[in-house]
């Protein structure tokens, strides 16, 4: 058990940031992403014997977080969003002041990412932050490798169209 805790702790320390970035890129809400990743790691610890033998344990964590996100959304659909008692405005995640994003993360970039379809965001997250190849990404998401390639190409094209002008403008300042 001590050995399990030690190996899990090492795994957690070395992978947690990239897993959070991957989930944040997909979810767009810093607080929700951190909760999801923490819960996914806790589930990984609960079955560490199996997860540690997984070919890519960090992919297991991110995939679990993605799945919990789906569950969270399914639960949320049955919930009613009440207006804020002070302002009267409905609190919606993803809106300014509620997304919990680090100031360091470019909001325009996050907005561009969130405009991508969910599957494209997941592909980008896995390829970018977990350095997964096409085959592993496809396996993790349960889709065909060709679909991964297509999603990535479309995501890059969309990001280039939305994001690059900003970079160019800033680089000229």
């Amino acid at each position, binding site marked *: 058990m001590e050995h399990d*805790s030690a190996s*899990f*702790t090492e795994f*957690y*320390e070395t992978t*947690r*940031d990239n*897993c*959070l*970035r991957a989930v*944040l*890129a997909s979810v767009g809400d*810093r607080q929700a992403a*951190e909760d999801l*990743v*923490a*819960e996914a*790691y*806790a*589930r*990984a*610890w*609960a*079955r*560490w014997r199996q997860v540690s033998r997984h070919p890519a344990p960090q992919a297991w964590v991110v995939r679990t977080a993605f799945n919990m996100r789906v569950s969270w959304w399914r639960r949320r659909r049955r919930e009613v969003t009440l207006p804020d008692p002070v302002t009267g405005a409905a609190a919606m995640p993803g809106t300014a002041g509620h997304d919990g994003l*680090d100031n*360091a*993360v*470019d909001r325009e*970039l996050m907005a561009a*990412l969130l405009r991508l379809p969910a599957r494209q965001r997941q592909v*980008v997250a896995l390829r*970018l*932050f977990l350095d997964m190849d096409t085959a592993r990404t496809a396996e993790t998401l349960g889709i065909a490798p060709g679909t991964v390639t297509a999603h990535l190409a479309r995501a*890059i094209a969309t*990001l*280039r169209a939305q*994001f*690059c002008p900003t*970079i*160019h403008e800033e680089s000229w300042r």
Partner: protein
Amino acid sequence: MNDNDLMTAVRDCFAPVRMNAPADVIIERGRCLRDRRQRRQRGRLAVGALAVALSAGLGAGLGISAASVGSSGAAHDATLTAWVVQKHPDGSISVTIRALRDLPALERKLAADGARVTISYDTLLTLPRACLAPDFQTVSGMRIFQLPGEVSFRTADPARNGLYFTLYPARVPRHEVLRITVFRDGQIPPYPVPGANAERTTVTFPGSFGVDAVGEFDVFLTGVWDTRQCTS
């Protein structure tokens, strides 16, 4: 800016994002989840045991007086129990072994019911010839055990996988033990064994032995002296 530059820019934007939760908090939460899962599993096992007990109670009307079950079977088919022991009113014991798991528990259960049986895997070749009980042939003629009917061990029908036999413990001579040995197909005992002493058949125990031992196995049943050397 090419694609790599774009991806690098995106990655750089996320560089300051760090997971703050300390590992011990995660582990504590994981421990709660694990305990909850184990409680749930124990509950399911209890429900399964209750179902088996109910079915055994149903079988009492058919002459079955008691039944014990082993832990869940092969990982790919968790609904199967590893083994089932049923003691009948006439003292005979029906044994169904679907997977060679929890064998010490199975041996203890059989011993509690009065049948001295030892079950082992792939050790027949190391069994000294002197262990074979010479009078087992006679005892075998009194039906210490029997293999009921045609035994199907094909993986295509997991519900029929396994070994089925009936023991008559009262007819086993003192100082003798029934030894069941499962070994890889093709491994022939290095000494002649009287035909009546043993039944040999081919079985498939999917996912048994705690290793990937899916394949064809021979089951060898014989009587041995009740000594540590012969039963271990």
